């Protein structure tokens, strides 16, 4: 009887894994080039890590895989990691609290309950976290690093959308909403329902006009933010520093000629975000997102350490990057007779070819992706080379001649 895979789980085939490993390699190389060090956090964490108000929204907490561990008689629950940033913040607090600045990156899987089984319950992502930097330059560094990775993966052009959660938090407060409603509206905005702002009626037509501008307009230079600042109602003056902060990063991107879109309707993200948030779109797909989370480290028990980060979604990238083929032509060393001398010669030639960087299989028949088939003569000293697709053969080749022919075909 066939036993199917779990609902919402995915098998990755060799082709997927080729794509995955390529993304990993590009990601690691770029991160390393920018001074980021790789970490790995455990798949299991205590539920408590994620329940602090301000870390994950109740909606996300409701989709956690939480359960009692084998020593869970105390009622303490563990969860399958739903997010990469919060465990990284925990690791930072536990292991690196004395470092003023930490550049960290990881490649990890995240888990989230999904009832229908139509969507993935396990998602892979490449994450980058910059702990200890409060400067707009830090946010710009993250955006540029993400762009470098996406560019090396041949995913271009990339659309960047910028928004600011801190701006929304302050805006909701300045509008005089009760704390519960502020929290509710913010959660709606963070789940992508920017129209939640439209439900709010400001006290003056001026405030309402400003809210409408935030909702409806998208800017493509820091000039747009200057414009917003100039029409900012007096009552909402507290929002100004956030527009300035966004303008700081926008100016940096302008100066290096990187295009972007300031789009306040793209504020979707995690509850722990406190500042600028950004999203990366490639060929119309959201392939990554990130933002500033200056209050997360204190929330998980650390000092007052500002931080920001981003994640690229590997499951999405796998489908978008060009299809990769196997690294080198695969060769079958054929052993038909089963005689000891032939076997010995076959193992020896296979070992030598592997030493030269070829992928070599041994057996009686060729796998479908084999390029060459080699069989040795009875004396074990001369070889026949067969092109698997054309079936043309070259008999009586010495090992050196064999290598030469293979090398020539590699160059072609």
């Amino acid at each position, binding site marked *: *009887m066939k*036993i199917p895979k779990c609902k919402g789980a995915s098998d990755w085939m060799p082709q997927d894994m080729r794509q995955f490993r390529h993304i990993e390699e590009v990601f690691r190389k770029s991160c390393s080039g920018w001074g980021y060090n790789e970490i790995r956090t455990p798949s299991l964490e205590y539920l*408590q890590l994620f*329940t*602090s*108000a301000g870390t994950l929204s*109740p909606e996300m*907490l*409701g989709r956690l895989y*939480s359960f*009692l561990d*084998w*020593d*869970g*008689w*105390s*009622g*303490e*629950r563990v969860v399958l990691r739903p997010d990469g940033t919060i465990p990284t913040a925990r690791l930072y607090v536990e292991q690196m609290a004395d470092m003023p600045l930490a550049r960290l990156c990881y490649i990890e899987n995240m888990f989230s309950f999904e*009832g*229908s089984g139509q969507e993935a319950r396990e998602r892979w992502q490449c994450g980058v976290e910059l702990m200890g930097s409060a400067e707009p330059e830090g946010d710009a560094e993250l955006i540029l690093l993400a762009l470098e990775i996406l560019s090396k993966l041949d995913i271009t052009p990339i659309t960047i959308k910028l928004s600011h959660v801190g701006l929304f938090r302050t805006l909701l407060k300045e509008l005089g909403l009760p704390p519960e409603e502020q929290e509710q509206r913010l959660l709606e905005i963070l789940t992508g329902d920017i129209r939640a702002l439209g439900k709010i009626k400001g006290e003056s037509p001026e405030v309402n006009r400003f809210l409408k501008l935030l909702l409806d307009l998208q800017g493509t230079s820091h000039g747009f933010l200057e414009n917003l600042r100039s029409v900012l109602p007096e009552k909402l003056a507290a929002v100004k520093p956030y527009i300035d902060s966004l303008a700081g990063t926008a100016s940096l991107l302008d100066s290096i000629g990187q295009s972007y879109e300031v789009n306040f309707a793209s504020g979707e993200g995690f509850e722990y975000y406190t500042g600028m948030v950004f999203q990366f779109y490639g060929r119309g797909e959201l392939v990554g997102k990130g933002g500033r989370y200056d209050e997360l480290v204190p929330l998980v028990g650390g000092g007052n350490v500002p931080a920001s980060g981003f994640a690229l979604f590997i499951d999405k990238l796998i489908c978008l990057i060009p299809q990769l083929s196997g690294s080198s032509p695969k060769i079958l060393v054929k052993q038909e007779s089963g005689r000891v001398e032939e076997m010995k010669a076959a193992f020896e030639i296979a070992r030598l070819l592997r030493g030269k960087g070829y992928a070599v299989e041994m057996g009686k028949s060729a796998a479908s992706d084999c390029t060459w088939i080699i069989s040795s003569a009875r004396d074990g000293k001369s070889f026949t080379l067969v092109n698997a697709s054309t079936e043309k053969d070259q008999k009586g080749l010495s090992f050196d001649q064999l290598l030469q022919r293979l090398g020539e075909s590699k160059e072609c």
Partner: protein
Amino acid sequence: MLKLALPKGALQSNTANLLQRAGFGYADYHESSRVYRPKSQGFPALFTKVFHEKDLAVQVAIGNYDLAICGLDWIMELLVKYHSDAIVKVRDLGYGQRNLYLASSRFSAIRSVADIKSSSGPVRIISEYPNIAEALALRFRLRNFRIMPAWGAVEAYPPEHAELAIIPATTSEELKAKDLVPIARILTGNAWLIANRNSLARKDLSSLLLPFHQAAPEAEADRDISISEIDSEEKFESSVFPDGEVSLALADGHQQSHTNKFLKKAGIKIRSYRQPPPTRRPQIEFEGVSVKVVRPQDMPGQVANGNFDLAVTGRDWLSDHKYQFPASPVQELVNLGFGWVRIVAVVHNNLPAESTGDLRQLLQSGQIPILRIASEYTNIADKYARDNHLSPYKVIPSWGATEAYLPEDADVLIENTETGKTLAKNNLKIIETLFESTGCLIGNSLSLTDPVKKERIERLVEIFQKGLAAPSP
């Protein structure tokens, strides 16, 4: 064939009346009936089965039944955790109103939701509704909480063994009578007619839905978890829970009389354990020991988490706990010998299996595609299937009336039996005895690290051991 599942217990009487009005004509489903498969005169082709209320929503969700009548509390207990489950709430039936309250103890300083939110330590919530409890803790944004699932008697736990309890009651006055302080009403609901989503989409259920529509008056109480705070005028009464006091849990239910007899035999005097009015906190004449009366099913877990130092429970529940938590600090201290039962694997007489090996053969030959094992002892059932390589299998947790599962809704039961007569009466046969179970005194090995407790525990254990040899009073 259309299938309807009905509740036993609190909703049984009103549900029987409704079915009568709706023309279902169940002669054998009424207030005191114990029939599991009542026959409908009005709808002879309808298959009907009676379940413990907590199992009904699950049976509809997994598609075993097209329709069921179930309290909203148990529907929500499933839906808050498994949002996409295939349950459609069809009609509020207007009877059996039950409220769920969040409550603390009058000996606890917690009096409001604000007190809960500002609590500094871990907040322990005990409930028969663990999913609702978790949803509530998340809604309150509690950073550090523990959910303690219980089979019942949750009113016994606050304040020293849990900060909060989620407890069903008709009015908040009922809670006050149990020394609890209602903090908020979190759910109000009646019995509902529920349907399986697929059944509604694919089958013609109209002949059944229409009579319900006509016989049940329009009613609609709250549908969702909502926090309605209760201003409590109860005064906080401080109570001393001294350090070094040994906390002993004694069983309610059918184990109570066995335990009571044994305590008498051992010469331990205890007041209000059996005599009316019943109390969850009887007085024991043993210095430095306090007693609570709780469900035996909950005891191993509660001893493991340190809520109780000692408990009198059954080896069956101890085994179930140890199979789930092999490293648990709970251990058996004295085998008390009373309440002997066998834990057995049971199948329907019609199943061609006389042993566990036969079951394996039926699975291997494909005659049973997946073995469904229903049990109150989910961990024992799981271990039985694993140890006997009964693959593939699934364990169906049950909260009672388990013998009704065979043969339609399960293939095997893991059940306790004394004489086997009830099983035989239900056309069931035992194919294997897993082990024998008796009452036992269990303890938490970590409790012995406190020298004062250690001395008291050792004295108690000695008295229990002597009680074994003592003649019956």
